[in-house]
């Protein structure tokens, strides 16, 4: 998932956590953008960072590559830059009557950058490639709901599960059928009510035939389908995109050329924006966030928006650390955290206190799902802890990866807990992200640890199922609640959107009772731009919306 890899990226940078590097004026609307308009044509430069992998949509899980992939690949649906609502892009229609059998009709005449037309088989082949385990695609799991996914996985044990008997039985998903050039059907194993919303994620991008003949060359110079095509990727220096002349979709851009200039420090990118040497930076350095300095540096040339990112603190599974087993203890700890003060003092108001487990930017969000348990109340917290018989361990621990900017807020959180509950709390740094994640996945880490989630697609389901469903891939606390699972299944089966969202919200409400993870805050993204450009908008994903950027 892309957001977490943002945390990886942050580990490779000195800047503030990428989970919204922004600066807030404190107003919740916070979404300003410069007046639209401007002229068409011209060139802009944008802050970029190093893609960690070849630019293949189904193998790109981090923002550096993701930002480029988003601009050069069209998907079946496109998320509205303002509202994050899915709108048909390559798809003419996506129809289903039972949430299990979907018929996708494509618009005719849309082309890849090599001039070949985008047809049904380009989707079927791409998704099969992503799902086929031996290809080792990091986003392959997005195909999991599609029927036949299990047969494309390796079942062997040991170092190489794909060796010998463990070989995948098939390399084609039975649930994908190309009916004709412009129609294909998707059959899912279980009911998935929000499948059409998911199809805007980059892992679902179609791939041209050229990809399959030479995936390696493609990764260096991808042939996409979006409004911009990739001209050159100068490794570690710049990525140059230009307008695709044959683009006939609705989401084209105004400028002719976009150059991602690769920066290692957000400070130098920011200084370049002030000096008009760089047009847009999607990251404001910490130094400029203090006292809203960036607003005086870049008057009317900055914007801020809440994005689909949440920071949480997860409890180790009960069998790893029984001291936190009682939900009352977890709720007491959550109530002992003074989120407002931490956000003000440490994040310069670039976060929004969380009132639930789902980001406000997504479809199906409901406020105050966490209720009083996410409201700072030291007296109640202490009472609740006493009710649970006090804390049995010698101290509460909160672990974080020390290679990114988490030390300050984890220590502040611990101090807040210590003062409210009178129990010692220690923030423990783990040397780096890789070690940190290893300890968590091997279930060796005790106490509490920081976890973050950035949405893959704007749906309430994406904040619940992958994290809290029994046995889900990112369920680090081994949370398991049959009632919760059943509500998710029912929601996925519901053909009525409002009803589905209602069921998801009921499931989320259960999390307040069990408190498997403490919601901390939602992220915001802040951007700044030079005085040459206009129409810069931030999407719900915290990326630049290239369809509206123009030169003045």
């Amino acid at each position: 998932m892309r957001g977490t890899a943002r945390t990886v990226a942050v580990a490779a940078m000195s800047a503030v956590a990428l989970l919204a590097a922004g600066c807030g004026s404190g107003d919740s609307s916070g979404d300003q953008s410069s007046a639209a308009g401007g002229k068409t044509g011209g060139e802009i430069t944008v802050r970029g960072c190093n893609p960690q992998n070849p630019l293949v949509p189904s193998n790109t899980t981090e923002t550096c590559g993701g930002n480029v992939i988003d601009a050069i690949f069209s998907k079946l649906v496109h998320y509205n830059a303002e509202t994050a609502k899915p709108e048909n892009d390559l798809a003419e229609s996506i129809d289903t009557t039972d949430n299990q059998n979907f018929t996708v009709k494509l618009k005719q005449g849309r082309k890849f950058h090599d001039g070949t037309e985008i047809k049904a088989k380009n989707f079927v082949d791409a998704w099969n490639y992503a799902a086929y385990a031996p290809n080792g695609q990091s986003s392959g799991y997005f195909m999991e709901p599609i029927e036949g996914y299990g047969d494309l996985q390796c079942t062997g044990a040991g170092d190489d599960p794909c060796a010998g008997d463990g070989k995948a039985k098939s390399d084609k998903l039975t649930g994908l059928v190309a009916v004709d050039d412009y129609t294909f059907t998707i059959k899912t194993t279980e009911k998935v009510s929000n499948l059409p919303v998911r199809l805007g994620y980059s892992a679902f991008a179609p791939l041209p035939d050229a990809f399959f003949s030479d995936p390696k060359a493609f990764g260096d110079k991808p042939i996409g389908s979006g409004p911009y095509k990739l001209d050159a990727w100068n490794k570690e220096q710049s990525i140059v995109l230009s307008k695709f002349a044959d683009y006939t979709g609705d989401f084209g851009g105004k400028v002719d050329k976009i150059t991602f200039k690769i920066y290692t420090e957000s400070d130098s990118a920011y200084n370049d924006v002030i000096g008009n040497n760089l047009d847009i930076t999607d990251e404001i350095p910490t130094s400029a966030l203090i006292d809203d300095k960036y607003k005086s540096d870049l008057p009317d040339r900055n914007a801020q928006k809440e994005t689909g990112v949440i920071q949480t603190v997860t409890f180790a599974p009960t069998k790893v650390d029984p001291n936190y087993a009682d939900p009352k203890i977890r709720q007491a700890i959550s109530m002992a955290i003074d989120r407002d003060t931490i956000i003000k003092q440490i994040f310069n108001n670039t976060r929004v206190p969380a009132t639930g487990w789902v980001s406000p930017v997504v479809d199906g969000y409901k406020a105050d799902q966490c209720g009083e348990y996410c409201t700072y109340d030291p007296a109640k917290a202490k009472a609740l802890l006493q009710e649970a018989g006090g804390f049995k361990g010698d101290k509460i621990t909160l672990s974080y990866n020390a290679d990114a900017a988490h030390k300050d807020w984890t220590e502040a959180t611990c101090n807040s807990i210590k003062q409210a509950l009178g129990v010692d709390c220690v923030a423990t740094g783990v040397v780096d992200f890789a070690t940190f994640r290893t300890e968590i996945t091997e279930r060796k880490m005790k106490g509490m640890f920081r976890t973050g989630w950035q949405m893959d697609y704007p749906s309430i389901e994406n904040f619940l199922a992958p994290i809290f469903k029994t046995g889900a891939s990112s369920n680090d606390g081994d949370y398991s609640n049959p009632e919760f699972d059943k509500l998710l299944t029912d929601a996925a089966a519901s053909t009525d959107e409002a009803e589905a969202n209602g069921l998801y919200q009921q499931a989320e409400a259960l999390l307040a009772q069990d408190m498997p993870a403490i919601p901390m805050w939602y992220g915001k993204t802040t951007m700044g731009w030079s005085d040459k450009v206009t129409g810069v908008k931030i999407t719900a994903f915290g990326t630049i919306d290239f369809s509206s950027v123009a030169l003045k």
Partner: protein
Amino acid sequence: MGTYIVRRILQMIPVILGATFLIFAMVFALPGDPVAGKCGERPCSAAYRAAFIEKYNLDDPLPVQYGKYVINLAKGDLGTTSSDIPVADQLKLRVPVTAKLAFMAILIEAVIGILAGVVTGIRKGGFLDNLVLVSTLVLISIPIFVIGNVAQLYLGVKFGLFPVTVTSANPSFYELLLPALVLGSLSVAYVARLMRTNLVENLRSDYVRTAISKGLTKRRAYGLHALRNSLIPVVTFIGFDFGALLGGAVVTEGIFNIPGVGGYIFRAIRVRDGASVVGSVTFLVIVYLIVNLLVDLLYGLLDPRISHD
């Protein structure tokens, strides 16, 4: 002389082998799992892991891994980074930039430092001497990131005398001037102080007094005899500094966004990109050995009593 150089070059081979093995062992003996964290907060799929491990021979025992690496190294193949970019290509792009920056910084520190050292050494205790003493003290006590950021803010952003950051893959002399000044500023102080102290000591020595009393002009006695002798520790320092600068200046490169070696190694270490770390550090070891050899040869030129034959 010739045999000495050959002997020194032959001695480099075991040093390079030993150093690379140590680095290799250290990089791959880091705690944790090299694949962890590659897929963000979720564990990587088994297939992704298998593909990754196979690509980097991570399932072989360490000596076998190292053997494979050295065989490739002998062919001139430094391996590929985890983003599948050949390390050699990256170094080819970055080393010239870093070298250019290092040369400029060394030139600045050598010229200014030696001049300041000589002037203050000859006129010990004067106004100039005290001025240099105080200003070098200030330079030594300010951390480089402060100097760099302040210089960038005032000379780049506010007054526009210099470009704010380096924007091209092959930066011009002018683009690198400010970073080179920042980099050289710290060493200028050391060079000036070393030079001054050694010169003061040598000017009091017997051979200078003898030379003066034999009727040599002050200029000849100081310039030819005292100065040459005093330069030996200075040259040692400059040589060491040059090697260090070729290893990249992480902080300065970061501030000015210079596509050099330092930032590359720094990032590679952070994302656990073993091949990049080992490849670039191997290269640095070779650079250090060569610079050391050059410094030793320079001793011979400066002081005929140190002979390599």
